[in-house]
């Protein structure tokens, strides 16, 4: 009946994550909170992209005209769908997850119940991805209202955004797992997210960059997400879809494995 002497515990933290549908309880808890603040939150999701579309699409677009065959406002709208998903998901997995872990001790309460660290991390990752879906949808609605969408197949961008959001969330969760304060997240914004935003084909085609930098851009997930989402949103046909989706998927799997291990080490001490 009695347990044997446990193995050295670091070894236990090093194991692969165990996935379970228990993550849904964590996801639903966050949804329940969000529903209380849904209206301002959704308005925020509409407000920012509208500003971007005005500034870049109409303002800058009037000077640029077209990118290839594509009107610049259409080009930028399809890019912002992706970058906004990246920021929404990352923000949730950094600041909001950290608040629930440290400030509010929500995770501590969950760990008193029969939930594991892996359940919480998966719940937070899927939740952040879900929020990126909300923000991408808001932009698609605005773009659709402005007549910038290529057709019905724009909705096919949504599952791609969900996958991308998962990848961005898991990577951000690594940062959250090692962070000792909110200030630390600025490094991630400055050193990772901002360069990724500027180099990944959101504002201009990647091939405008020097070849080396363009290659580096494709090591990060956002460029691949743009490659798939832009044609879907503007009425074209994306190419090499499997390859482009494999990159955010790989980021999700590898980052989740690392993040869950770091959180186990941090929380089960």
């Amino acid at each position, binding site marked *: *009946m*009695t*347990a044997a002497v446990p193995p050295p515990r670091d070894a236990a933290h090093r194991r692969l994550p165990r996935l379970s549908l228990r993550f849904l309880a964590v996801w639903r808890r966050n949804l329940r909170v969000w529903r*209380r603040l849904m209206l301002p939150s959704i308005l925020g999701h509409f407000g920012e992209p509208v500003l971007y579309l005005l500034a870049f699409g109409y303002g800058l677009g009037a000077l640029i005209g077209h990118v290839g065959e594509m009107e610049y406002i259409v080009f930028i709208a399809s890019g912002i769908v992706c970058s906004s998903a990246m920021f929404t998901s990352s923000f949730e997995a950094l600041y909001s997850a950290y608040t629930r872990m440290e400030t509010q001790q929500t995770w501590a*309460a969950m*760990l*008193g*119940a029969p939930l594991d660290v892996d359940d919480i991390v998966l719940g937070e990752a899927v939740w952040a991805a879900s929020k990126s879906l909300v923000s991408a949808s808001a932009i698609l609605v605005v773009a659709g209202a402005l007549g910038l969408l290529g057709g019905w197949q724009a909705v096919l961008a949504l599952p791609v955004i969900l996958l991308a959001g998962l990848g961005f969330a898991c990577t951000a969760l690594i940062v959250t797992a090692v962070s000792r304060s909110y200030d630390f997240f600025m490094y991630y914004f400055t050193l990772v997210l901002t360069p990724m935003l500027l180099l990944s084909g959101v504002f201009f085609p990647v091939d405008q960059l020097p070849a080396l930098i363009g290659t580096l851009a494709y090591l990060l997930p956002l460029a691949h997400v743009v490659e798939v989402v832009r044609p879907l949103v503007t009425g074209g046909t994306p190419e090499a879809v499997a390859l482009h989706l494999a990159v955010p998927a790989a980021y999700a799997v590898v980052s989740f494995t690392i993040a869950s291990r770091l959180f186990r080490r941090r929380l089960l*001490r």
Partner: protein
Amino acid sequence: MTDPAATTPAVLAEGLVKRYGGVAVVDGIDLTVRRGECFGLLGPNGAGKTTTLRMLLGLTPPDGGRLTVLGEPVPLRAREVRARVGVVPQADNLDPDFTVRENLITYASYFGLSKREVGPRIDALLEFAALDQRSAARVPTLSGGMKRRLTLVRALINDPELVVLDEPSTGLDPQARQHIWQRLRQLRADGRTLILTTHYMDEAERLCDRLAIMDRGRVVACDTPEALVAAAAAGLRYLQRPANLEDVFLQLTGHDLRE
């Protein structure tokens, strides 16, 4: 009692060790908590009480020893154990975005219990906590005593066999403490096992059937409050009054400040 599970102790710890950076915070303790008793862990700050509780819940992996809770090996099956345990943590971790009732519904969902399943139970728990008039109140509007009562009934949402409480009455006014104590006695009368940590000798003396006094990671004494006082009374003859548990505590753990 024919159920074999009921004859195993609620907690059986043998030679339990936890080290941080080479320092043993819990240094080879043995504990047996019987089913249905209220067991107290007393000790100065840093004695290892909270670490011991975390190990019981599988939240702190021990560095040595054997541990069985409700007949299950921990931490191996800690999640299954936590499904049958209620936890009242030291720090408030109620959900500030939710109402009283939503807190209970949400916490129930962590146990896989649906809103419909726990609805009647939540009504009963709110009454038990004297919060039935405040079920729609948001958590930040509650007093400290109300929050503590809500945390207590939150720990009962899964009808637990064992309730673990880390300093359940710290920071409460006398009325709120009396209320919590009365509720804890009721839980014990229902046949639940209680394990609590406390700094308060009166709390330990009133509530606990047995208690362990911890100091520097070790159990320095473990018995009923009466027996501890009786055993120590011999060494406390210089007192002008009958010895009490506080005298025992200070005799065993010393008068030095710990922090």
